[in-house]
């Protein structure tokens, strides 16, 4: 298990190196002065041209490319990602102030889609060919076919404007302090994000469950006189779970991607909304850094998924 973990961890590093390198190349190709996102804008305004040139030399902007990359990487590792072009705020501060909102939304949606998807998928598989199975399958297809933002708009129209049950956007209101106060704000975006993701999880867990149920050991379990629930849950679902966990892990990129659109529509103050604003404002350093951040998040998440699957499957764990 330890060597497995270490091996997976070691495979992460070259990937991250290549990605950071690409991001750095992107930053270098950005039109505009490289100094501008390294030095705070207040300091910039008070500088003469000679001073700027000096600074450039001092900052090593005239050094060879690879040296600059390594220096940039070193700073990034220490948490210095430069400044936003438009607001002049350190990028690190932007990302970390927006992170809790995005995490809250993503985890809620992940929870909804995983629970709903795996249970519906299992039921669908157990009743293969029944009316329930067919309707769930068609519902799932409709789920992946409706544009997420359209689904979001319709749900705002119905639940916020027509029925007035839930707020149409934002994460909190003045005077709200606890999570429970804010909960109504979370419900709609989390449900929209969660339900659109449920379809994929359901489809996958259905086929995974069907696969598990077709295995010989299901027949063995029955031949021991075990009751159906035990055969289906302990021998079917338990085995079917591993690929579902892997899928949920692979869905994390989609989740982060999905939250870009959903955050925008619900005016949820997370990283996704910040990202759209940055793209719209041609704020490339911020765009690059958020992209880097999300890739890192995905890679770390997939590493955790690997560990989880190893825990679930003794064949990997004990190798």
């Amino acid at each position: 298990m330890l060597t497995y973990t270490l091996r997976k961890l070691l495979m992460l590093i070259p990937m991250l190196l290549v990605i950071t390198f690409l991001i750095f190349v992107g930053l270098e190709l950005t039109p505009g002065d490289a100094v501008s996102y390294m030095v705070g804008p207040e300091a910039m305004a008070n500088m003469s041209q000679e001073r700027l040139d000096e600074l450039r030399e001092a900052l090593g902007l005239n050094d060879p490319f690879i040296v600059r990359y390594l220096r940039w990487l070193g700073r990034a590792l220490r948490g210095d990602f430069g400044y936003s072009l438009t607001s002049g705020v350190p990028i690190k501060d932007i990302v970390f102030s927006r992170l809790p909102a995005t995490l809250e939304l993503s985890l809620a949606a992940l929870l909804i889609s995983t629970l709903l998807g795996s249970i519906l998928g299992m039921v669908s598989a157990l009743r293969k060919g029944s009316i329930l199975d067919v309707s769930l399958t068609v519902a799932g297809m409709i789920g992946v076919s409706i544009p997420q933002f359209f689904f979001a708009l319709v749900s705002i129209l119905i639940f916020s404007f027509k029925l007035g049950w839930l707020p149409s956007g934002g994460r909190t209101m003045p005077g709200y302090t606890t999570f429970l106060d804010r909960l109504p704000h979370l419900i709609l975006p989390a449900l929209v994000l969660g339900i659109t993701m449920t379809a994929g999880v359901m489809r996958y867990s259905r086929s995974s469950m069907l696969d598990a149920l077709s295995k010989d050991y299901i027949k063995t379990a029955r031949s021991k006189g075990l009751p159906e629930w035990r055969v289906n849950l302990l021998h079917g679902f338990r085995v079917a779970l591993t690929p579902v966990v892997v899928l949920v892990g692979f869905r994390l990129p989609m989740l982060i991607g999905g939250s870009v659109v959903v955050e925008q529509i619900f005016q949820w103050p997370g990283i996704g909304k910040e990202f759209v604003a940055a793209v719209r404002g041609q704020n490339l350093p911020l765009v690059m850094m958020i992209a880097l951040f999300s890739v890192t998040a995905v890679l770390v998440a997939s590493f955790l998924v690997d560990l989880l699957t190893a825990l679930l499957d003794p064949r990997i764990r004990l190798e």
Partner: protein
Amino acid sequence: MVYVDTILTVDNLHINFYTNNRCNEAVKGVSFQLKKGRTLCLVGESGCGKSVSASAIMRLLPPLSRIEEGRIIYHTDQGDIHLHELDPSGPEIRAIRGAEIAMIFQDPMTALNPVYTVGFQIREAFMYHAKMAKAAMQAKAVELLRAMRIPAPEQRVNEYIHQYSGGMRQRAMIAMAMACNPKILIADEPTTALDVTVQAQIFDLMNDLQQKHNAAILLITHDMGVVAELAHDVVVMYMGVAVENGPVEDVLTRPAHPYTSALLRSIPVLGQSKAQKLEPIRGSTPDPFNRPQGCQFHPRCDFATEQCLQEPETFSVSPNHTVRCWHYEKVLANA
């Protein structure tokens, strides 16, 4: 004419499969009796319905299949149980599965669950048939593994099936099947996936168990060598039909069905490799959806006549030896 020592009667069993929107008559007329302390072999090539017949006894047929006709009767001291009438997922058949009738499968690697320890899966076998504390079940599992001659059972019991070697896996499976001392053990090609040397060990073990517990064994195989080695009685199957049925000495030395005799002539006998002339059976197995009329074997048979277009009756060669062939006397004379 049920003998005192008969424990299971299968009578004129018919099973259809309804997959892919077609109807396939997988088993069309199989009868035999299983006796205490004796081994009966179901032989035939793959697809002849031998495994299906065995699964039907346990009522473990896949969803899109059905027992059309015939009876499966389990004879107990408390009277007969008509297995073919039970709900396949109901409590009555569940009480019999594992406790009274147990089954071992061809490939233990796929027939045992990879995510649970061997011990867990053996304990499961007790769980619904005996009231026992978990520690007692664990101790019993270790004891069973030891009886199956698995080294270091205290440690092995907590290991997973992929950590076992090939022969050990099958022994673990037998341990699981024998957990509740079943009266009948159904073994579906138990050694096909194993080395020849390991095969012998497994058969040894099964013999021991039979003698110790007086269990009846239904052994499914395509290997005539295995039949000669282990069987007391043989049922030969072809395209879903039990074509010949009798004590092993009779069937192997005086085959009355052309298929049995062709089968015997097509396999090599150890020590005769040079002298023996191997004759493969001509033609090939028909498509189950496009079956020949009457006797299923007649297109490949040397004795075939007009009469073979009629379904053959069952004839008695000797009191215990029956055959389904119009020309069995010619076959016997020819041998």
